[in-house]
C-alpha cells in the first residue's frame, strides 16, 4: 500500500480488496484491473454531521471513493504532487490540495480560531486557508498538490520557520503557528516589501512549502 511517485506530477496507488482510498473527483488518469470510482456525497469520512460541518466550513472538496483490485494513476491539472507518509501524527492541509489519501486516515475539519483565537482567524484569511482547514490523522499516505515543486522544512524546538503564507502548503507534527506581521509606514503608502505577513511555525514537525506564490 502507499503511493509510488512515477514522476513529479503523477503517482501510482495500489488498491486491494478491503482497502479504501479517497481521491479528488476527476483526478484518476488511468487504471488497471477492476477498480470502481464512487462519488462521495459526504465529501469524505464521517456521517452526515461531518458532511454538514464540511459544507459550512467550505472544506467540502468533491471526493470519490476508490475501491477494488488493481493499480490507479492519479494526477491533476499538471500540479506537482508530494506524497507525505503519516505515522500517527496529524497533517493539516487545505481540502482542495488533497489529491488522494488512504482510507486508514481519519479526516476532520479544524476551526483555525481554535489555534490562537482571533489571530488564528486573521492568519487563515491571509494565508487563503479561510477559517477552517482539514486535518488527517493516523497511519497512511497522503498525496498533496502544489503549484511548483515542494520542499519540506523541518521544524525543531527553538528554531521556528517563517513561511510566506501564499507558499504554505501543509504542515504536520506538534506545531504552533502564528502570523507575524512586519507592517510599517511603507506598507501604508504602498511602498511595502510585499512580505508584510509571514507565517511563523514553531514546535516540532515539518512544514511543506511550494516554490510558487500561486494558489492552486
Amino acid at each position, binding site marked *: 500500500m502507499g503511493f509510488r511517485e*512515477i*514522476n*513529479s*506530477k*503523477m503517482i501510482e496507488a495500489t488498491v486491494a480488496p478491503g482497502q479504501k482510498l479517497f481521491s479528488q*473527483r*476527476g*483526478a*484518476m*488518469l*488511468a*487504471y*488497471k484491473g477492476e477498480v*470502481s*470510482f*464512487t*462519488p462521495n*456525497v459526504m465529501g469524505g469520512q464521517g456521517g452526515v454531521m461531518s458532511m454538514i460541518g464540511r459544507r459550512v466550513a467550505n472544506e467540502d472538496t*468533491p471526493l*470519490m471513493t476508490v475501491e477494488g483490485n488493481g493499480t490507479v*494513476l492519479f*494526477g*491533476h*491539472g*499538471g*500540479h506537482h504532487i508530494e506524497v507525505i507518509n503519516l505515522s500517527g501524527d496529524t497533517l493539516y492541509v487545505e481540502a482542495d490540495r488533497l489529491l488522494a489519501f488512504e482510507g486508514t486516515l481519519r479526516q476532520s475539519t479544524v476551526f483555525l480560531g481554535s489555534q490562537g483565537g482571533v489571530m488564528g482567524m486573521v492568519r487563515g484569511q491571509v494565508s487563503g486557508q479561510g477559517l477552517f482547514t482539514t486535518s488527517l490523522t493516523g497511519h497512511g499516505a497522503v498525496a498533496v498538490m502544489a503549484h511548483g515543486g515542494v520542499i519540506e522544512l523541518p521544524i525543531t524546538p527553538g528554531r521556528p520557520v517563517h513561511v510566506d503564507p501564499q507558499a504554505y502548503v501543509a504542515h504536520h507534527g506538534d506545531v504552533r503557528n502564528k502570523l507575524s506581521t512586519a507592517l510599517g509606514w511603507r506598507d501604508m503608502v504602498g511602498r511595502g516589501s510585499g512580505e508584510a505577513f509571514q507565517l511563523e511555525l514553531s514546535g516540532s514537525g515539518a512544514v511543506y512549502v511550494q516554490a510558487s506564490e500561486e494558489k492552486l
Partner: protein
Amino acid sequence: MSTYGTAPGAGPAVYDPVTLPSDDNVDPYTFCVELKGNQWFLQKGKMIAYYGSVEFNGIGHGRLDRLVRTSFHSPLHASDWVVAEGSGKMLLADRAFDVNAYDLDEGNLTIRSGNLLAFQPSLSLKQSIVPGFLTLIGTGKFVAASNGPVVFMEPPVRVDPQALVGWADCPSPCHHYDHGYMTGVMGGLRALTGLGGTSGEEHQFEFVGAGTVLMQSSEELMPELDTGATPQQAGVPGAGMSGGHGQGPGTPRLPGQLGDLQRRFGL
C-alpha cells in the same frame, strides 16, 4: 535539469550553431532539429528560434504539392502545419511542456493533435478515427510534447481521455462506461434526481491487446493558443494590426470602425 550540460553552480549553458545538439533535446523543454537540405513538417508556432537559412512554407503551396500528397493526409489540420526546409538548426518548444523525440520503424502511432510538434516527411500523417487524434505511419522521427514526462503503460489499461497522449500498435482503443455507477439503489436515485454528482470517471478509453499507451501527467489541457499573430505588447512592431488574430473577444472589427478609440468611449 543538470543532466543537460549545466553543471551545478555554473551559469546557464550558452549554445552556438556548432554546440547545439543535432536532432536531440537541448533541455527537457526544447528540442533542436538539424536541417541539411531536408524537410520537416512543423506545427505552426512551435518554432522558437533558428540558426542558418530555413524557409517556412504553408501547406497548400504549389511547390510542396507533391510532398503533401505523399505524406500529409489530413486536410482538417492543413492550416496548422508548415514545412520547414533549408539548412541550419531549429529549436522547437511548446508552452513549457516536456518535449521528446520518438523514432518509428515501420510502425504506427496515434497522438493527440495538439501534442505533435513536428515530424519527418518519411512518416505519413493521417487523421485517426478517434476525433482529435492524428496517426503517423511509416519510418522516421517525430517530436511530441506532453505536460510532464510521458508515462508508458502496457495494456490492458483504462485511461482518462484527457490524460491520453497517444498510443502505438494498439488495435482496439474503445470507450468504456462504468455501468455499475448507474445501477443499484444509490445509482438509481442519482440517475433519477441528478443529485450526488458524478465521480468524473464514468468514461474512459480502454486499451487491450499488444502495444503501448502514452500518457501525460495532467488531465487539464492548456488552452490551445492562437498562433501566427504578433503578440499584443508595447514595442512589438505590427501589434494591434494582426489581421483577425489576437483581437479581444467580442464582435469582429469591421473596416471603417474606429477600433480601440471607439471601444474606449463605449460606442
